């Protein structure tokens, strides 16, 4: 029936059975609905046991990431009408362990994030009396794109390197390292070197570029990683010639 939407939803209830399965739900087709609307309808009217994360429903909190027909998506921005009348398959984000149903364990990312020191590291102590930081629009533009990350982790799901080796620091964390490196208020480029240039850092990236493709905020983490490679490689080259100075 073309006025119905069928969702095949991944279920995993570790308290009940060891194996995952798919559960099929049928809802009335609504042209305005996003996949998240359908999921909420299912939870409210059909099956209250379905577990998933969500909050803002406007693509800013990063909670509702799931695989929709095999692609990592924010379900609050994924419209049912773009799939209708095909069945929509909803699964938890790949490359993460599954806690239950659509809920993944994201502790790995929560450990990787602080490892790149994603905060302003000023060159020297700055007392409040000195007043506010100021930046020109040009200075803001340098890092602005990389600051748009909402930590939704779609990029980790898209990245085959992370899928093959979960030790890889990953796109979002590395893009945030670059965000701070490019901020004129920051002097932490050297401080971040160990984490960023470690084996599981930027050098494990082979520029597949899928992270940038799936990013819902246009962050371009793949671009950030390649910039980091260039910048730290130049650092290294300079350190050979000028051992005491020269950072890029």
């Amino acid at each position: 029936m073309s006025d119905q939407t069928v969702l095949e939803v991944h279920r995993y209830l570790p308290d009940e059975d060891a194996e995952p399965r798919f559960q099929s739900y049928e809802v009335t087709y609504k042209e305005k609905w996003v996949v998240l609307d359908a999921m909420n309808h299912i939870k409210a009217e059909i099956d209250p046991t379905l577990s998933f994360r969500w909050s803002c429903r406007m693509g800013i909190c990063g909670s509702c990431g799931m695989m929709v027909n095999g692609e990592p998506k924010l379900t609050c921005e994924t419209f049912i009408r773009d799939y209708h009348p095909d069945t929509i398959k909803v699964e938890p984000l790949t490359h993460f362990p599954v806690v239950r149903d659509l809920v993944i364990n994201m502790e790995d990312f929560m450990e990787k994030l602080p490892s790149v020191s994603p905060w302003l590291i000023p060159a020297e102590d700055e007392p409040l009396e000195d007043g506010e930081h100021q930046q020109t629009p040009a200075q803001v533009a340098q890092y602005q794109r990389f600051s748009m990350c909402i930590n939704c982790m779609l990029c980790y799901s898209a990245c085959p390197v992370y899928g093959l080796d979960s030790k890889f620091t990953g796109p979002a964390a590395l893009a945030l390292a670059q965000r701070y490196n490019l901020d004129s208020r920051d002097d932490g480029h050297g401080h971040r070197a160990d984490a960023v240039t470690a084996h599981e850092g930027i050098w494990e990236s082979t520029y597949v570029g899928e992270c940038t493709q799936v990013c819902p905020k246009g962050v371009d983490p793949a671009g950030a990683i390649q910039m980091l490679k260039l910048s730290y490689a130049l650092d290294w080259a300079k350190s050979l010639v000028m051992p005491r100075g020269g950072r890029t």
Partner: protein
Amino acid sequence: MSQELTRPLPRTWWLKKASYFLFMIRELTSLAVFAYALLLILALWTAGADASFSTFLNSPVSVWLHVVVLALALFHTGTWIALTPKVMVLWRDDERVEPDLIAGVTAILFLMVTGGVLWLTLA
């Protein structure tokens, strides 16, 4: 704590999506380039003295091999040119220089250098 479900990446992951497949081809082009480099070194080593090697180089199989390697090398070069705007981010005040412009300039430079090398070798 309840058991978490892990879903290991299948070996055939790169067949699942066109972009993954093209990525693998791009990576494999490095093997083709490496193999051809060995061939070139062999050719230089023998310097035309080995008759069967020279015959091979002139055979149709060899020509097709060269065509394939050339195609792969060009594909690889194309992806490299497309990469340049990602690492060379240039700014005009607070606006970014159009990435296509940077890629375009790189492509033109590549063609100029290639043209120059061809002219030197064929002239």
